[in-house]
């Protein structure tokens, strides 16, 4: 897929609803689509060291979208940042579109993993952090975004329990918490990570400055989780 000249214009946060409406035909979007919007924007706009030109750079930061359902906010941000041509958004979910209702890394420029089935991203992120470390690439950060209900999957708990003792300092998890888990974690999400030796911060998932501060908080020797609370899915 080539990036056309028109796509090179700079898009800002205020353009995201319009980009999302190209996929949904509607400016009001489902909770799964918008819960991640601010987290994704702050990451791609201010934190991640990755650009369309650096997609294959071994030293780039990795962002793995594990919560692959409702990916419209993700595609909108990728389009705003020039990874995906804006004119591809309208075909969302159609046979000839690279943009499915779950993302496919083979089809979507800039997507590090294919996702949709829950509980796969964090274990893959653990492996990515291990792989970078084994190759002496100590600078690139690995980020993975999961949902609070996705956190129910046992595979995530295998990864959480391993990453703390393994001191995967370059591993970062964001849990977007829209209170959608039927049986929430007793003591809260952050406590579960802290018990496994992670650094943890819980913030308002709509507050860009709070998100940025949480994303950039130092966490020497430990993996880091940011629990980003947004309005409850059922509300």
């Amino acid at each position: 897929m080539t990036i056309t000249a028109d796509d090179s214009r700079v898009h800002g946060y205020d353009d995201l609803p319009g980009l999302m409406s190209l996929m949904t035909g509607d400016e009001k979007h489902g909770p799964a689509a918008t819960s991640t919007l601010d987290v994704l924007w702050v990451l791609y706009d201010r934190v991640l060291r990755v650009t369309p030109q650096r997609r294959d750079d071994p030293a780039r930061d990795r962002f793995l979208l594990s919560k692959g359902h409702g990916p419209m906010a993700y595609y909108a941000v990728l389009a705003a940042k020039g990874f995906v041509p804006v004119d591809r958004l309208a075909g969302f979910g159609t046979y000839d579109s690279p943009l499915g209702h779950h993302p496919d890394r083979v089809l979507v420029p800039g997507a590090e993993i294919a996702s949709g089935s829950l509980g796969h991203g964090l274990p893959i992120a653990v492996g990515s952090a291990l792989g970078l470390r084994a190759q002496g690439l100590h600078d690139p950060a690995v980020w993975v975004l999961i949902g609070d209900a996705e956190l129910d999957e046992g595979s995530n708990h295998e990864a959480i329990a391993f990453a703390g003792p393994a001191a995967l300092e370059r591993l970062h998890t964001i849990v977007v918490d829209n209170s959608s888990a039927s049986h929430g974690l007793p003591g809260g999400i952050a406590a579960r990570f802290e018990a496994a030796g992670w650094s943890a911060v819980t913030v308002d998932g709509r507050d860009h400055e709070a998100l940025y501060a949480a994303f950039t908080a130092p966490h020497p020797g430990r993996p880091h989780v940011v629990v980003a609370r947004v309005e409850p899915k059922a509300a």
Partner: protein
Amino acid sequence: METMRDRFAPALSRMLDEDPRVAVVLAEIGKDAFREAMARHPDRVINVGIREQLLVGAAAGLALTGLRPVVHTFASFLVERPFEQIKLDLGHQDAGAVLVSAAASFDWPAGGYTHMSPGDVALLDTLDGWTVHVPGHPDEAETLLHHAVAAGDDKVYVRLSVQSNRQGRVIDGRHFVTIREGRRAVVVAVGPVLDAVLAATEGLDVTVLYATTVRPFDAAGLRRATQAAGNDVVLVEPYLAGTSTAAVSEALSYVPHRVLGLGVGRRELRRYGTIEEHVAAHGLDAHGLRARIGAFVEAGRAAVHV
């Protein structure tokens, strides 16, 4: 006697020393054999604990950063428990790995059904693009392990067993080997069943092909063998009976043919005991094979003379 698995850690440890791409991922099982390698390469010999979903998911992550992960545990925990990880984290992500199993069909009968996985190859058959090596001797296991690690970013399964033939054969990681030539049928012996097949077919006028790589299936080699031996084919596999019958049918789809698929039965025996007792119970000893292969060949002759 030295087993295939005894060769695994020393051979792979040498590959770790020589190739900076190679990484080993374990879930407790087999870690003692990698103690020295882990001390030399702490970042590339990874034990994730008893976490098989993470085992495969982490291997995929390693592969996505450019490494060549080799993943090892018992077949039940490597192929069956994290099957969706194999399907999605490796297949759907377009990432490669070498999966090396042990104790698949009934290497530890006293351990019972929790530690048996006769369906491992059939399960991988539901996925695209897997190479499957089934060595029949420790020498072959070492050769095939080298092929597997060297196979770029391919998805490769290496099935190690304590069952073994008495001698290793010269194999190339792709083609079937002709062991014996005849005119009445082709018998394909996969991995460690070769000795039993040779004993069972003694005096029968059949071709015996030896297969240590079953996916991709050497369809051309099978077709060549049938030119002299006819289109009656017996498959003898050390895992679920009939696993490769579809591959045989596809190879011979343009000619009338008969196929008999022999292997481990689907029904759970609920027996402990020894490997030999399980081999006999599944009809995979020379005596059991002789009866079924003989009847199949005779039926073919009867059909010709009707």
